[in-house]
């Protein structure tokens, strides 16, 4: 199916999401912060990036704005559980920076998988 770059600093959430994505037959690349994700992007070409927003070293907001300039074809899904702002505040910001879809934690995993399928489908359509 698709190659997905998963950026999440929480080990439990990252492992769980990896399992969910792998069970849906996706290939998963994992990163625990924005810096690691940037390194992955230099070596690999994922179809979709699923990123958390509040992370150490490099936040999801910075990562999205950088990635959108360097990899304009990469589809981004932002996820957040909130922080100083409410989650929707971060997610609105990430969407305005270029994320295609955003989800507030705790996420309905089926909705996340559906969003990935839709993004892949539209990407394929645009490519053909």
């Amino acid at each position, binding site marked *: 199916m698709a190659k997905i770059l998963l950026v999440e600093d*929480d080990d*439990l*959430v990252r492992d*769980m*999401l990896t*399992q*969910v994505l792998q*069970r849906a037959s996706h290939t998963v690349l994992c990163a625990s912060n924005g810096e690691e994700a940037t390194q992955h992007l230099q070596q690999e070409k994922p179809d979709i990036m699923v990123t958390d927003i*509040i992370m150490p070293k490099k936040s999801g907001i910075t990562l999205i704005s950088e990635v959108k300039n360097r990899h304009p074809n990469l589809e981004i899904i932002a996820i957040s*559980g*909130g*922080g*100083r*702002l*409410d*989650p929707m*505040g971060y997610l609105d910001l990430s969407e305005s920076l270029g994320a295609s879809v955003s989800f507030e*934690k*705790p*996420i309905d*995993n089926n909705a996340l998988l559906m969003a990935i399928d839709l993004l892949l489908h539209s990407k394929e359509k645009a490519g053909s």
Partner: protein
Amino acid sequence: MSQMYTKLWLPYLVAGIGILISFFLWDFILWHHIEAYLNILLPYKSYLSWLILLLGISFSILTGAVIRITQLDYQRTALLNQIQATLKKEINERMQAEESKQKLEIALLQGQKLQAIGTLAGGIAHDFNNILYAIIGYTEILREDEEKNSLKYNNLGKILEATKRGRELISRILAFSRKQHHEFDMIDLNNTIEAALALLKPTIPASVMIQFKRNNAISIIGNQTQIHQVLVNIINNAIDSMEGEGIITIHTAHLAPHDPLLKQLMQTSIQNYCKIEISDTGHGMDQATMERVFEPFFTTKEVGKGSGLGLSIVHSIIKEHKGEILLNSQLGRGTTFTILLPECSR
């Protein structure tokens, strides 16, 4: 009558008239035909007119003096009363100022405490969302591998149900802590209250009566949904405190800038405020409960029946509307919440 005490000439007039009458009698007795009537007193005849003159003058002077002393006494009493009234007023003013200061300090402290708890709650909510998400995700993965309606499948379903409750709790904590960017519009307060009452109607027991005394049109700048939430939370608490039976009175009114209620909270204000008063006939609360009632997670309800966030959300919403909320309660007599909100001038 009191004017009599301020006329300084009165004692002199009385004494003067008395002396004149005495002289007239003296003259009358001395020169006119009164001797015939005084035959029996003949030996004293020559002294009588002088005696009457002396007594008359003494009596007149004495009367004048008594009047003057009474006047002085009255004036001193009036002066003392005036001083006493001024002192009483001053003491009252000082006591009121001290009371307002104390209330303001308590309100400030309470506000700071709530803000701190809000920040803390916001941080906890973020971490808790991650934990919750991991639990939900792993449970769903495990559940997918189980046969539908098997014991394991159903038990995993129970875990998911419990996480739902956790999710609701988190969204309430976030509602309290986050500075939500709600859309504020000019809203009609009375209509908003009526709409909130209509929302609540199906859940209100028949034995609870709600009386809404609306004032003339009152407009505020605010968020209608948030004001609904304020009313719903307070009214639900009132219903619980009345154990499903009693009267809830809601009253709206305009407040002038010099209203004593505003003076209690703010030193000076050029802003017009309006108030919403919500009273119930419930069991009321003691001082210790009143002091903590707006704190998040503080509840007097049974475990599982109240999250302890209802009134802290109310407090947070009223603060967001640049308003104040006051609480007055007596055990066994019920509770009154008074909400002050800046009124919108049309």
